[in-house]
């Protein structure tokens, strides 16, 4: 981005002047060597396949029929955009992502505020709270499916029966809600950790000053803490969105997109089109559309990260 290499971070200081003298071509090449293996491998395994997907999206091909590859312009895009199931998958992905992110950030902020206070066994409670995020997602999905949601033996129905509600056949009657519930359980710790880091990076002097000035706890939280937390909440929401849009394990293992199309999201839709129906052209077009959508969220995410990054630098 900048012509003379800018040294950021605390490492700058004394070293910066020596480095900002224009390096020779050989010197520049030598500097690049440590970066190259990682960069080349990443390009080969991400950008080359992505170009492949773009290529397929403009060509007609079904692996089962073994047709000759034929350039078809935007026909695959037209097909996929006209496909009712694709539109359902887009809508489901939006609903799933928005609900999970909203619920988990709200819970995450609340829990972070709670954990920022001193109490007996705080580190144990923190350890308990982060565990859902560590549990292998495939395990979490199967555990919730069979031990929590089961209409007969499930613990959710047992808890509800204690207060006289139910029984509910969670996965058949409330499929999307069930998935969101399980995902919120999984992602709340992630949000909590990021917000908690934000809370603990607050300047204690400012909080003490507010207290001395007689500000009430709630006012302090709203006027000082919340604005400080904004960027951390944004980061949590954006990173969370990027990962939750990609949700595959839970759908594959709990509902397989069903009942009907009720929980069919984009990753599972594309997976099915690719590996079950072998509709290469259409699923590639769907993949390109998903990447385009992700880029929109990613631009915002990168901006937030860049801001945090500037502050650090």
């Amino acid at each position, binding site marked *: *981005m900048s012509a003379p*290499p800018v040294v950021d*971070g*605390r*490492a700058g*200081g*004394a*070293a910066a002047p020596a*480095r900002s003298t224009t390096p020779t071509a050989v010197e520049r090449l030598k*500097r*690049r060597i*440590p970066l190259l293996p*990682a960069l080349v*491998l990443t390009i080969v*395994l991400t*950008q*080359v396949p992505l170009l492949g*997907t773009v290529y397929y999206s403009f060509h007609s091909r079904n692996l089962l029929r073994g047709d000759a590859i034929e350039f078809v312009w935007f026909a695959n895009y037209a097909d996929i955009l006209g496909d009712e199931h694709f539109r359902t998958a887009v809508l489901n992905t939006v609903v799933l992502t928005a609900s999970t992110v909203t619920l988990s950030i709200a819970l995450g902020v609340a829990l972070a505020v709670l954990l920022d*206070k*001193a*109490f007996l*066994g*705080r*580190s*144990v*409670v923190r*350890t308990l*709270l*982060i565990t*859902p*995020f*560590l*549990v*292998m997602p*495939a395990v979490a999905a199967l555990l*919730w499916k069979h*031990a*929590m949601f089961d209409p007969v033996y499930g613990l959710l129905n047992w808890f509800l029966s204690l207060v006289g509600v139910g029984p509910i056949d969670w996965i058949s009657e409330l499929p999307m809600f069930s998935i969101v519930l399980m995902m919120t359980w999984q992602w709340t710790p992630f949000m909590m950790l*990021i917000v908690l*880091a*934000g809370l603990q*990076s607050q*300047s*204690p*002097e400012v909080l003490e000053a507010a207290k001395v000035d007689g500000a009430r706890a709630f006012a302090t939280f709203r006027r000082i803490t919340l604005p400080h937390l904004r960027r*951390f909440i944004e*980061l949590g929401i954006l990173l969370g969105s990027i990962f939750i849009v990609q949700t595959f*394990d839970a759908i*594959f*293992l709990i509902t397989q997109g069903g009942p009907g199309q009720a929980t069919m999201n984009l*990753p599972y839709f594309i*997976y099915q089109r690719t590996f079950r129906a072998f509709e290469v052209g259409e699923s590639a077009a769907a*993949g390109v559309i*998903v*990447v385009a959508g992700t880029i929109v*969220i*990613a631009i915002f995410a990168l901006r937030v*990260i860049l801001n*945090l990054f500037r502050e*650090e630098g």
Partner: protein
Amino acid sequence: MLETAPTPPASGEASHSERAAAARRRTRRPRSLGVAALAWTVGLVFFFPVLWMFLTGFKHESEASTTPPTWLFVPTFDQFRAILGRDFLPYFLNSLTASVLSTVLVVVLAVPAAYALSLAPVRRWKDALFFFISTRMMPPVAIILPLYIIANNIGLLDNVTMLSVVYTVMNLPIAVWMIRSFLVELPAEVLEASRVDGASIGTEIRRIILPMIAPGVAATALICFIFAWNEFFFAVSLTSTKAATVPVFLTGFITAEGLFLAQLSAASMMAALPVILAGWVAQKWLVRGLSLGAVK
């Protein structure tokens, strides 16, 4: 292990915050009991499904599926034996190989890359940094088909090495960002001294830098291990029998076949425990890894 959470950092600001926290503690004692009760309740609610998995894994099948749920029982190892009898071990070893191999590769590639993006920055190092994370944000489903076809053509489908390389690329952005965040915290004087000595880049990284950021590298490695071990999508798409990992083994439990909850729980425990433990150990650094080094 459980006590690792609030580590007092060594800087001046932190000791301030410690003092302030102590002051708060003194003034708010009566409230802290309510806070503790609430926090413990929520913590246990969140932990409950994991606890239940742990308990159910030690039950007989007849005790696992009951209404009301069975709380007291005589523990048995039958389910673990049954899972091992279902050829669980090869899957476990594949998971171990893919996770460890990819983690080693990630560290070997990420340390020099992070060095070239911080201490001896190449031109347009910011672009390179943002290129790395942008790849982590790309949905895997968008590249799976070409990856599958390439792997198939070069005979690397259903191959642990191939899976490890995919995991390496998946984790590189996180590792580069994280290790870089540790490198920029190094004191400049030490590096200057090593340059004056005329050490080559390789020697400088190995002899001077690596020992200083060793804890950071260990934390990065643990987080990469966690992501690789838990990965499902690439495993289920790129492997079938020879290289299948633990999450793929678990797909055998999608539909209920009679009484099987205890066995599922035992398998789940064996699948999830390594990462739960790794995560508990690494929890201090977890947030740094999850936020790509942006949040300390």
